[in-house]
């Protein structure tokens, strides 16, 4: 660990297998923080138990989260994304096949971006 201090690390990396202990510590903290979010919601519900009201609230969560992710994504897009999104909706609705819907949608967005 005798690296010269004047050289900022992000210009000095040469070894692709370099492992910096500080970087590993930050990555470990990121991994723990992320796992807490992934496991925490379910863990908490199992511990505190759930009333009928909470169960009703949880039932609307999947759709609500999907809409909450989707709304701003679509709002920040333009006409090609909106049209391709409509294509995905129609194909998903008619076929019920997510793979067909995704492939058609990605094809549509490429086409609409080229045309519009």
């Amino acid at each position: 660990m005798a690296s010269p201090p004047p050289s900022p690390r992000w210009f000095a990396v040469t070894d692709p297998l370099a492992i910096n202990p500080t970087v590993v510590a930050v990555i470990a903290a990121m991994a723990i923080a992320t796992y807490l979010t992934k496991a925490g919601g379910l863990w908490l519900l199992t511990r505190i138990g759930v009333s009928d009201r909470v169960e009703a609230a949880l039932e609307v969560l999947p759709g609500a989260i999907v809409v909450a992710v989707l709304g701003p994504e679509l709002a920040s897009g333009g006409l090609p994304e909106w049209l391709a999104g409509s294509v995905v909706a129609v194909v998903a609705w008619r076929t019920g096949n997510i793979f067909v819907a995704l492939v058609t949608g990605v094809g549509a967005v490429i086409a609409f971006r080229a045309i519009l």
Partner: protein
Amino acid sequence: MSTTDEQTEQDVESIETAASTDDAPNAVTFDRAGIRAGFVTCLPVALGVAGYGIAFGVLADQAGLSVAEVALMSATVLAGASQIIAVELWADPIPAATVVLAVFAVNLRYSLMGAALRPWFKHLSGIRVYGSLFFMADENWALTMRDLTGGSRRGAFLLGSGLAIWVFWVASSVAGVAVGGVIDDPATFGLDFVLVATFVALAVELWDGASTAVPWAVALVTALVTTEVLAGQWHVIAGGVAAAVAEVVRRD
């Protein structure tokens, strides 16, 4: 304490009873077939995720992370948006507290997503539940909700689909560092649209008639307003919580 515990047990029992009207007890499976189904279903989506992985690898390379460090981060954190934000915040010395807090805030939505799996995961053992949750990402959570709400009862679907995401995410992150700036924009191949397309298809799948309209409208408006006011991923939490509160109020 004991009264609280009794109350909790009663609540849990009432839910088990309510759930068992349409579920046989312990009807959720956890087997190799479920893992396989999840993995195969998720492959086309994982290919899209790889587009983001390459973008992440390129950014991480620019931030000064080595291939080994990038592989370690992708393999242990496994949360795309938060990793991209983390390497954007990267500096020398590393602002550790800021990075970890940003990662936590961006990923808070996972606690709601995980909670939404409860009707099925409550039938599974702890190690299966908490092992599977490590592999939960946006895309495979969406596919899993679609599979489970469709009545498959495949408890291993999240793990299988998550393994597909994990393999492609780690490999594409490493590839991103290696190729550097060759493909620095996922938009080139329309790959940036995969996440939106996945969620549109899922929304169609989850639409449950008029009763869905009010909570969805609340979620949509809240998310759109929040995204104008707050940076990051808070709109997801805000939209989900607002819809849940609206539903509780509506049922009273």
